[in-house]
């Protein structure tokens, strides 16, 4: 069994998971219009830190936020593996910042970077679950982080994927996504010590990754990969046992249509959904970690699913049991 014993979110909405949850519950959004943040790009709406952040220090601060809740020192242990979820890392370099983070914490193990496009934050948790279930480590620290740049904004604009105003997931007049910045960390362990100060916590029950095998930059019209992920993580349980589905909900025309089809095919159309992009934008490698934490914090004594899809035709889902 794989338990979450700590988590943390740093975003433009605040520092700490609870500060971010309160911001969401109060209806505050990090989305703003930026006209001069990066040279040449058209004005864009995004959720960015007021002061541009450096990648490695932001990740370190996020990890520190997730381990302050308990006394046991695990960051420097050979029983602990660091798993970084990011798409663009520190100025396009992914392995060097990962090594800098483990070095900072004195961790002796080689870090793992998951680079599976927008699904990375959920895939990284699946990687953690597998390594722990196989007995290769006792603890896994999953860090999701992405910083926005001229590179990324220009690319999404060239795809005409960005909405000029705050995104409207699942709305008929949705115009596209907003980008965002965040760092978030989840600490998983097979060692079932749950300090009373950490509440709520959850167990990671199942995870699945499937490719649509249809298109590199557009999802399957039948939601095939996402549907197969949902069916995998629901194996042995029924839809009425799921209290919440944290969907991707990027507010692009194709993603939201695809997710709607996949959810209907899996019989999850009547289960409440959580859509967080209007608050944080699409935080890329951080999205799966940020959204898993916030969905889990809103659930009690129930099971929830977090799903994501991304470029390369990849889809991922996990099921959590929240205490």
């Amino acid at each position, binding site marked *: 069994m794989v338990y979450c014993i700590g988590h943390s979110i740093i975003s433009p909405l605040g520092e700490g998971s609870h500060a971010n949850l309160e911001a969401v519950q109060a209806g505050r959004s990090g989305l703003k219009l930026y006209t001069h943040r990066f040279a040449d790009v058209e004005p864009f709406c995004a959720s960015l830190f007021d002061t541009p952040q450096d990648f490695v220090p932001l990740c370190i601060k996020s990890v520190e936020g997730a381990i302050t809740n308990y006394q046991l020192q695990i960051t420097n242990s050979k029983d602990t593996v660091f798993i970084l979820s990011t798409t663009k890392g520190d100025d396009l370099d992914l392995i060097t910042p990962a090594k800098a983070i483990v070095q900072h914490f004195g961790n002796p193990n080689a870090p793992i970077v998951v680079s599976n496009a927008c699904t990375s934050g959920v895939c990284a948790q699946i990687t953690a679950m597998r390594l722990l279930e*196989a007995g290769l480590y006792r603890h896994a620290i999953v860090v999701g982080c992405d910083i926005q740049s001229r590179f990324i904004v220009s690319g999404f604009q060239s795809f005409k994927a960005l909405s000029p105003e705050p995104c409207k997931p699942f709305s008929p007049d949705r115009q596209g996504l907003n980008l965002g910045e965040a760092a978030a960390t989840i600490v998983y362990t097979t060692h079932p010590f749950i300090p009373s100060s950490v509440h709520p916590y959850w167990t990671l029950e199942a995870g699945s990754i499937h490719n649509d095998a249809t298109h590199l930059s557009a999802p399957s019209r039948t939601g*095939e990969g996402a549907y197969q992920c949902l069916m995998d993580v629901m194996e042995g349980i029924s839809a009425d046992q799921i209290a919440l589905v944290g969907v991707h909900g990027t507010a692009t025309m194709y993603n939201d249509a695809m997710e709607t089809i996949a959810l209907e095919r899996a019989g999850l159309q009547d289960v409440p959904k959580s859509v967080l992009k209007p608050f944080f934008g699409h935080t890329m490698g951080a999205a799966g970690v940020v959204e898993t934490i916030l969905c889990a914090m809103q659930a009690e004594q129930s099971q929830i699913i977090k799903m994501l899809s991304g470029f390369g035709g990849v889809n991922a889902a996990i099921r959590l049991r929240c205490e």
Partner: protein
Amino acid sequence: MRVIREIEITPTSVVRNGQPIAVEATGEKMLVELYRRFAGDYPKFFKMDTLSRLGFIAAEILLKEPTANGQKPTAIILANRSASIKNDTDYMATISNGKYYPSPALFVYTLPNIITGEIAIRYQIQGETSFYILDKPEDLEQILLSTFNLQPSTSALAGWCECSDANTFYAKIQIIWNN
């Protein structure tokens, strides 16, 4: 884990299951030569960046002949050290030095996992596709072991697929059966 096939590609050599395959060209041109010999019917190859061409060619050579039991791998699990840096650099050049012509055709390849999607589409593999960035190829071993541990039936096209520029690349990719 049982390795049933293996391909190793450098800018000057190709070795399949321990047997060298003779090539005339080197570097990126060699990948085109291999495309013409082993595929030839997939013009989308010419839209791909070098990393994707490398992985695609490796998969073509590995999967060209049906496996003994006729099955194709259910998962594609690849890793490298430099992510998509070669294509990132190419994309960067379209928005640098006074130019600003960001290209969606280049931008789509600025993610390393795109190659896993390319192979999934080519062979209609709807199982897992994963891409990892690691310091060294040996670090992939624990990931494969733990993936197979939770999914006893999985077989995979798995290995290292690295490209830092058009003529500097290395692939060592295997078909692995989990029995």
